């Protein structure tokens, strides 16, 4: 085995179920032996996807000021900035609070659902790679903190009321984190490899039979 972060060569070791192998030089977790994480992750992913639509389209909060009131959802937040031509800010908000989390959830659903019903497709490999690649651009947690800071900033000049979108958003955040953390990526890679080898073997026997 090779360490991901310091390239240390380590002899193959037997790892007990539930424990993990850490690099003796840099402390990076090289392999985690934990099975049956896919079904759990799938359940959380479905819940998160159910929360997604109201969290994004329903109003997060509404303010009233001098007799007038206004409310806003996440999608509208990005739209206003686009109109004001702050493209980078608008795109970053749209990407990190909406697009990347949605894409990650869909990829996760695709992979965990197919694996739990024992389907296999070549596209899993790049799907799972993409899922990891965009990981740090999904910033639902940072956006939640942004909502809290905005409330504090506004509290002196306006009255604020939480909308239904906020509760849906909190649910989305929680299930999103649980879905990502309950999955053991090493288990997924191992399963994918197993399926691939199985497929290759079947192909070989098929061609052998045809040749015979």
């Amino acid at each position, binding site marked *: 085995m*090779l360490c*991901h*972060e*310091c*390239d*240390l*060569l380590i002899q193959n070791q037997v790892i007990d179920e539930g424990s993990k192998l850490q690099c003796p*030089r*840099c*402390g990076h977790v*090289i392999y985690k032996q934990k099975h049956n994480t896919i079904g759990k992750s799938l359940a959380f992913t479905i819940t998160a996807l159910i929360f997604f639509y109201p969290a994004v389209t329903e109003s*997060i*909060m509404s*303010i009233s*000021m*001098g007799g*007038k009131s*206004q*409310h*806003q959802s996440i999608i*509208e*937040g*990005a*739209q*206003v*900035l686009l109109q*004001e031509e*702050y493209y*980078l*800010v*608008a795109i*970053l*908000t749209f990407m990190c*609070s909406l697009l990347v989390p949605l894409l990650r959830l869909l990829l996760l659903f695709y992979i965990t659902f197919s694996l739990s019903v024992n389907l296999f497709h070549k596209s899993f*490999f*790049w799907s*799972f*790679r993409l899922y*990891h690649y965009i990981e*740090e651009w999904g*910033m639902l947690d*940072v*956006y939640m*903190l*942004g*909502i*809290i*800071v*905005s409330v*504090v*900033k*506004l*509290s*002196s*000049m*306006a009255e604020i009321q939480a909308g239904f979108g906020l509760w849906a958003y909190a649910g989305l955040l929680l299930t999103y984190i649980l879905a990502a953390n309950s999955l053991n990526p090493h288990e997924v*890679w191992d399963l*994918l*490899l197993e399926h*691939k080898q199985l497929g290759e073997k079947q192909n070989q026997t098929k061609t052998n039979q045809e040749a015979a």
Partner: protein
Amino acid sequence: MASRETTNNNHYRSGKEAGLVLCIECHTIHQYIPHMAMRCSRCGAQLHQRKPNSLNRTWALLITSIILFIPANMLTIMNVIYFGQDDPSTIIGGVILLIQLGSYSVAFVVFAASILVPLFKMVGILMILLSLKYNINLSDSQRITMFRYIDFIGRWSMLDIFVISILAALVNISGIAVITAGSAATAFGAVVVLTIMAANSFDTRLLWDYKQSTDNFLNSNNEQIK
């Protein structure tokens, strides 16, 4: 050749020395073939023993982000028009406003996310790059701990960008109060993206490559002296 046998027990062997290459996506190990574009047979990712051009890329992204950090702090990040009166504020101005409102904990969170985190991140990456360039002996555990910490906290500096986009959309009642973004918001957004990209383009394995080559050098020197 004798030096190899006398190397101390602390000498570790890297995958690169053993002629192996690791797929950093799916963690399979492959035999390395020099001068060939390799792809992982399991997942199809490109294979490199070290990320190509890692140091140059990190330097370029880091320097750009340091330069942009200046306008991000000097220019207006948010403009509050309250009953027809303009009240532009910088990043620091927003923190001071929160202190005046009496919400110290939130003021600290904003200060940490928009000033401390980006600053710490840029200085940290700069120190790691300089220590590699000028062979300054920082211990490996210090450097990798610092790098992991930097990688972990970096995304939280996006906080101010989100606050602006929430406020700009929410406070838009013409005649009473309107909040718009300022040009510092674009600069600051660019700083956050560039520092995240700089951390990503840095290959942590380079930290030990350097250490190993000096260790080998020292060992062979000792051998000659004996």
